[in-house]
């Protein structure tokens, strides 16, 4: 699913259904509730997202789910630039919300999509994003069942903002930090830091040459295998903003346990490590979009690793730490040189250092 080549539009076997000659760019009228908006919805959105719930074009989707325990989440996506190595804002908005659902121990089923478009956005860009959302949703077997579109004046947005909400059905009782216990193993699904560095390399004013691609991906398949394996998974967390460190600290704090990490066990790709060394960043805090950690009982660690490693996106899964009684809320790290230190939340975004 990695579309690295930015010059070449992704999945462009379909041509844009809105005749470009008529509307090469999004206009305010595309959000105005009139004919242009209807054209946009029918020709572009319905053709891309096509499913019986959405096709009814009612005010909301009517879904039948009797007796099911549900997870419900929402997230907004404002990434800049909207196309980046390894993905784009569209696939990211689908993966992100799917991943939030699966981390609760739910099978993702239905999504809503809210688009805020900036007047002047090239129609071809919108079409690329919509197509990318459609492929990401199909691949994860979820349906986009309702949506909304608004257009804001030029200069009032960044091309496109997307909000997605999602509903999933819990596999069993909710999992989370409350189940984390001393003795649990902490498993990481692969190398860290790729998304943050890929975005940074293409951000205006900070460009540097790199072949690093975002790890943006849906975690639905690997989590489905874990949740149906019979293993008593205690907690999962996807490692987005704030990276591995922030995700693990949050769990240590909510579960009131101490988590000990081993730096040497945490995979970081050489090119990501190199970029971090040059920029003065710590990969522990760099964002990911397709990585997660699993807390599993000690006796189930090997089986959990086996299941995860069967999936391409988690084939480098590794045991990186352990839950201890110790000091509640504390994360400690055994460094590469064998000493130890605490791992703390940053006060804000990591900033590149002077020298």
């Amino acid at each position, binding site marked *: 699913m990695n579309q690295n080549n930015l010059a070449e539009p992704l999945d462009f076997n379909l041509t844009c259904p809105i005749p470009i000659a008529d509307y090469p760019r999004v206009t305010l009228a595309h959000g105005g509730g009139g004919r242009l908006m209807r054209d946009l919805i029918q020709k572009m959105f319905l053709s891309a997202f096509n499913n019986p719930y959405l096709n009814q074009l009612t005010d909301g989707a009517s879904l039948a789910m009797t007796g099911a325990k549900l997870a419900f989440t929402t997230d907004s996506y404002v990434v800049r630039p909207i196309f980046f190595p390894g993905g784009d804002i569209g696939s990211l908005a689908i993966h992100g919300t799917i991943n939030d659902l699966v981390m609760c121990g739910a099978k993702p089923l239905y999504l809503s999509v809210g688009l805020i478009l900036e007047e002047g956005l090239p129609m071809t860009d919108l079409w690329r994003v919509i197509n990318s959302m459609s492929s990401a949703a199909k691949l994860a077997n979820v349906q986009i069942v309702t949506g909304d579109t608004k257009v804001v004046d030029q200069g009032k947005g960044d091309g496109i903002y997307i909000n997605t909400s999602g509903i999933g059905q819990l596999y069993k009782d909710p999992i989370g930090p409350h189940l984390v216990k001393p003795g649990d193993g902490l498993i990481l699904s692969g190398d860290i830091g790729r998304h943050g560095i890929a975005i940074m390399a293409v951000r205006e004013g900070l460009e540097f040459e790199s072949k690093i691609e975002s790890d943006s991906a849906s975690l639905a398949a690997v989590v489905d295998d874990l949740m149906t394996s019979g293993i008593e998974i205690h907690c999962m967390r996807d490692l987005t903003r704030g990276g591995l460190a922030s995700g693990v600290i949050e769990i240590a704090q909510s579960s009131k346990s101490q988590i000990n990490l081993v730096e040497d066990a945490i995979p970081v790709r050489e090119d990501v490590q190199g970029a971090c060394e040059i920029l003065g960043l710590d990969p522990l805090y760099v964002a990911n979009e397709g990585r997660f950690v699993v807390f599993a009982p000690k006796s189930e660690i090997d089986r959990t690793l086996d299941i995860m490693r069967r999936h391409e996106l988690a084939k480098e899964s590794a045991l990186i730490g352990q839950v201890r009684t110790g000091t509640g809320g*504390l994360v400690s790290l055994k460094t590469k*040189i064998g*000493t130890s*230190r*605490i791992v703390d939340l940053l006060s804000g975004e990591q900033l590149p*250092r002077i020298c």
Partner: protein
Amino acid sequence: MKFIDEFRDPVLARKVSESLKKITTRHWIIMEVCGGQTHAIVKFGVDELLPDQVMLVHGPGCPVCVTPVELIDKAIEIASKPGVILCSFGDMLRVPGSKGDLFSIKAQGGDVRFVYSPLDALKLARQHLDKEVVFFAVGFETTAPANAMAVKQAAVEKIQNFSILVSHVLVPPAMEAILSSKKNRVQGFLAAGHVCTIMGYEEYFPLAKKYHVPIVVTGFEPLDILQGVYMCVKQLEEGRAEVENQYTRAVAMRGNQAAQELIREIFTITPRRWRGIGEIPKSGLALQDAYAEFDAEMRFGVAEMVVEESTECISGLILQGLKNPRECPAFGTRCTPEKPLGATMVSSEGACAAYYRYRQYEPEGASSEPE
């Protein structure tokens, strides 16, 4: 990763640590000059591997920390003007001036951007001819050549909407200020490796001789620092006071002469105020008269601004190796990275921020591995 992993090898680190313990017979206080070294020491726990008798104190080599508060205020004043794009290295944006930081100006609508290189700021000037692009030229000798190059390039291309706000500082005068103080307790130095990459280390010979102090040019990886400490302690134990080079893979005795030439062409040596320390003679760089048109202080009329510093912050004492961050009553309470009283709490290279991030408290059984 090559050139990284071999300098973080735990077995070698233990070996150097053992050798160091064998040769240490007395108490010694050694200062690592550079903030990058401070950060590495605390991040990797290098000090855990030192004998109890060897104490590291943290030096003034954090450019963000020593930039005087009035320079921050000047940057804020300039960034608040309409039509200005103020560019800076990332970690300057959070440093508090007397009234706020550059991030808050950005939130109020100012165009403040962070860049990796002054040449990127110059690129912005070419792209935005209707704007004034100002680069906040902070740093030691390490960043001076790139800033000099940006000014030289602007002069060659006659780019008139580009200027720099200069707050350059020099390492050897600061070391001399520490050594000549009556309160000095530093007995040996780990000199800043990357400054020496540019400047070489000839200028340390007179310092080592005059103050009878060993100076070891040292790198930034854990093993570099351990070896630097070892070389320094060995000299102290043997009663020697020489300049030695631990960081041979990057530093030559005469440094990078092309870079030095460029610095001399664009900049001239000037007295400079250091945050928390005060004015040190001949310790800074200012633009040569021939390049005065690129001086943002002149262009925006902020040269005369004078601002007094907060009296509660003891960063000056910390930067001179006289106090440890934990000895500050405000540390971790009234002063945190979210609400810093002084710059040593802001920059990730600042001693207080490093202690706050890695040493707020000691974990129980932290070194135990997963079973």
